[in-house]
């Protein structure tokens, strides 16, 4: 008896320590927007009702399974050829209960949730535009203090960690960290316009409770109002190709003053970057800058070595496009030349003109022509890219 108690104590201690150590989550993460809060309430209520139905029915079944057995010599009691009235009565009972659950207990709150979810305009204080591309998000502020700010947000988990066969330590926010975070003011209703450049994507931050498909060629809308300062993370939720698992979302929700200060700083940073396109760069500067841009944006398909993943993603090392001239005799860039391809894209290749600034495009092209095993020797200046955009 003593031994048995020891075993029970030991096993329960083990179970408790296991569950304490492990990072189990049993429900939605903490909601921080009115919509997520509403969703959590709806979910909890639905789950309680569902579980109540489930366990009551299960209990009836289990009772029947144990009581009405042949092995216990239970003689079948035939349902006395039910009169139509009885049959209708017994069919109507679950019918009425469900009617009540579906369309009253669940249906009425659901109606209000839908109306709230779709009301993107009333009381919205600012508008941002989110563009999904394979495999990154682009954010653009359309009005207010941050008007005109736009940037691309890439996964920033070191590539070595996401490579196949990596066995070392992973970052705490493995696959959920980006280089440029979306910054939003706390407590403001933000209307979000959503679109995509290539395939469907879906912008989803679980703690916001909003998720909307980004459709190329269309604008979809949703809204968030983050009521608590903090950092919130999410992921793309619509299969969008091989990088689908690698386009996270990180949002910093900050107080209004901090948001305004961030907007000023970000604007200054962008002005500085734009000024870079008027300056004359050396080849080494461009190659060094280009390597950074390449590894962030291009390596996912064309690989860090430039070998690509044929046939879907061609090699850049020794390819016709990266080694043939950029400009024609008339000084305009050649159709299907290197600059054309980077600016305008083709099929799977995105059009980078909306995603990268002049300096970044000049740098990455110069790097692709003078790195990755290529040595064409020429230099593309940011000013030339700026001119080509006209």
């Amino acid at each position, binding site marked *: 008896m003593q031994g048995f108690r020891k075993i029970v104590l030991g096993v329960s201690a083990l179970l408790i320590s296991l569950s304490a150590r492990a*990072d*189990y*989550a049993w*429900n*939605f*993460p903490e909601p921080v927007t009115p*919509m*997520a809060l*509403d969703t959590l309430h*709806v979910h909890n209520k*639905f789950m309680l009702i*569902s579980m109540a139905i489930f366990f009551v*029915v*299960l209990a009836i*079944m289990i009772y*029947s*399974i144990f009581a*009405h*057995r*042949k092995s216990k010599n*239970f003689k*079948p009691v*035939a*349902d006395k050829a039910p009169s139509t009235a009885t049959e209708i009565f*017994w*069919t109507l009972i*679950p*019918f009425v209960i*469900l009617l009540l659950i*579906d369309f009253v207990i*669940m249906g009425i709150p*659901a109606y209000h*949730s*839908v109306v709230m*979810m779709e009301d993107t305009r009333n009381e919205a204080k600012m508008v941002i535009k989110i563009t999904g591309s394979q495999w990154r998000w682009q954010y653009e502020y359309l009005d207010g203090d941050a008007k005109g700010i736009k940037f691309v947000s890439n996964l920033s988990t070191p590539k070595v*960690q996401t490579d196949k066969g*990596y066995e070392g330590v*992973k970052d705490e*926010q493995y*696959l959920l960290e980006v280089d440029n975070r979306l910054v939003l003011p706390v407590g403001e209703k933000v209307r979000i316009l959503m679109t995509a450049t290539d*395939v*469907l994507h*879906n912008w989803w931050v*679980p703690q916001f409770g909003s*998720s*909307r*498909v980004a*459709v*190329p*060629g*269309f604008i*979809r809308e949703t809204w968030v109002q983050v009521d608590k300062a903090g950092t919130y993370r*999410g*992921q793309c*939720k619509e299969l969008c*190709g091989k990088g*689908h*698992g690698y386009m996270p979302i990180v949002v910093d929700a900050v107080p209004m003053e901090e948001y305004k200060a961030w907007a000023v700083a970000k604007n200054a940073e962008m002005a500085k970057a734009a000024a870079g396109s008027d300056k004359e760069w050396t080849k080494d500067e461009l190659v060094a800058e280009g390597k950074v841009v390449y590894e962030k944006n291009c390596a996912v398909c064309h690989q860090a070595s430039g070998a690509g*993943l044929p046939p*879907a993603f061609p090699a850049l090392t020794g390819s016709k496009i990266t080694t043939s001239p950029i400009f024609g005799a008339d000084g305009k860039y050649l159709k299907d030349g290197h600059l054309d391809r980077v600016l305008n894209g083709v099929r799977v290749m995105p059009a980078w003109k909306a995603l990268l600034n002049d300096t970044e495009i000049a740098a990455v092209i110069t790097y692709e022509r003078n790195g990755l095993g290529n040595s064409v020797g020429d230099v593309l200046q940011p000013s030339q890219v700026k001119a080509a955009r006209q």
Partner: protein
Amino acid sequence: MSTTTVAHHDDHAEHPTGIMRWLTTTNHKDIGTMYLTFSLIMFLVGGSMILAIRAELFQPGLQLLNPEFFNQLIGVHALIMIFAALMPAATGFANWMIPLQIGAPDMALPRLNNWGFWLLPPSAILLTLPFTLALFGIGDGALATGWTFYPPLSVQGGIGVDFAIFAVHLLGISSVLGSINIIVTLFNMRAPGMTLMKMPMFCWGWLITAFLLIATIPVLAGAVTMLLTDRHFGTHFFDAAGGGDPIMFQHLFWFFGHPEVYILLLPVWGFIPQILEAFSRKPMYGYKAQVYSLWAIGALAVVVWAHHFFTAGMPVPALLYFMYSTMAISLPLAVLFFCWIKTMWKGSMSFETPMLFAVGWIILFGIGGLTGLVLADVAADAQYHNSYFVVAHFHYTLFAGGIMGIMAGTYYWLPKMTGHMYNEKLGKLHFWLTAISFNMTFIPQFFLGLAGMPRRIPDYALQFAEFNMISTIAAFVLGLSQLIFVYNIVSCARGGKKATDQVWEGAKGLEWTLPSPPPYHSFTEQPVVK
């Protein structure tokens, strides 16, 4: 001499032997056996694919597969399980059992029946061939868009998409042919006295399934053909730049896709009540109510499709309509659940393997149904959509509700089909292993989805590690348990204790009046039903 010829001619039992028997057969039992065998093989193929995926998801980081191959496996796994495992299994039972249940000698259109089956192996090859071609440097592998083919990703994809489109065309033709055959058989070849409202429930389930197939498969075929012309012939059905709309594809696809769920489930809803009444030794409760409910579900099936993509964006009235109409499905379904349980109530139950599967099926399919009710809520759906919550939900409906139902049917009819009893101990072991490991695989996935793990990702954040590990271990137990099933079927086909004609004490229906196994041509003289 002439008399023997006449006698020989009369029983029609002669048939070619070897491979020619199977290639040329027009016999409903031979064709049914081929459907069921094909289904079992493809079940193992699709299962191995998902085990590769679960192995990759065992822990964070990429260990075994690269993301491109991962994406190919998820889509092909689904297409194989739906079109090549579940649907052929139901069609196999239809072929075997409908003539026996309605007292007919064979199906109405035997040659068409043969063709319906022989379209399946080529389409399975079309689906999986791109994997092999990629090994030889041709193309970049199979369909990598998930089974839903959503453009523009599918317009962007490689030759795997074209192969899958043609595979779907062939599978669709096969299904429509099978459906025509079943409808014609059920309407024309019932034994004298068997009115429609005396037809066995399995026949009812299949009749409605057949109508759903004929109504929706052409829409799917049209949608994937539009995709094909978008890919190769310069049309812009799904390209906004040319005036098209990618979301239109989702409407067309799910107009087929939602009824497809009931296409997979209605045959099971047909024979489960028959199993329940057999092992409860008491007639099924509410026959009429069940038939009307099946019709109601069949009708609702074609008007609720857009709940599969609430997050794609649509007007508020559309959201509300699809939410409420989806919730309405719970009404006829609740009537069915009520009738099933009432059939067991105060019966004299015994728990042989078919009954174990049938009772387990009611419970697990109930979980699938209830979580489906929650998913209909548009606001909450924004969170569930495309997360692992949905993955768990539809495996409760399609694995528990579909495949475990098929297993119940297999154990129920196997002695009739082979003439031998299967190994009861192994059958029970198979049930318990399947039921427990199935729950251990998918309950963690509900929590993963709530915690925010999107589906179809090859690698995941560290916070999801524990549940994924449990799920993977259980998935391997689940996968390996199915080998017991295969062994049990094969050894039962080869020999074993002789089965009686009645097989199960409480089984009802014309199929149990024939010897086990039944003669090559089932009823040479029509039985009369009173």
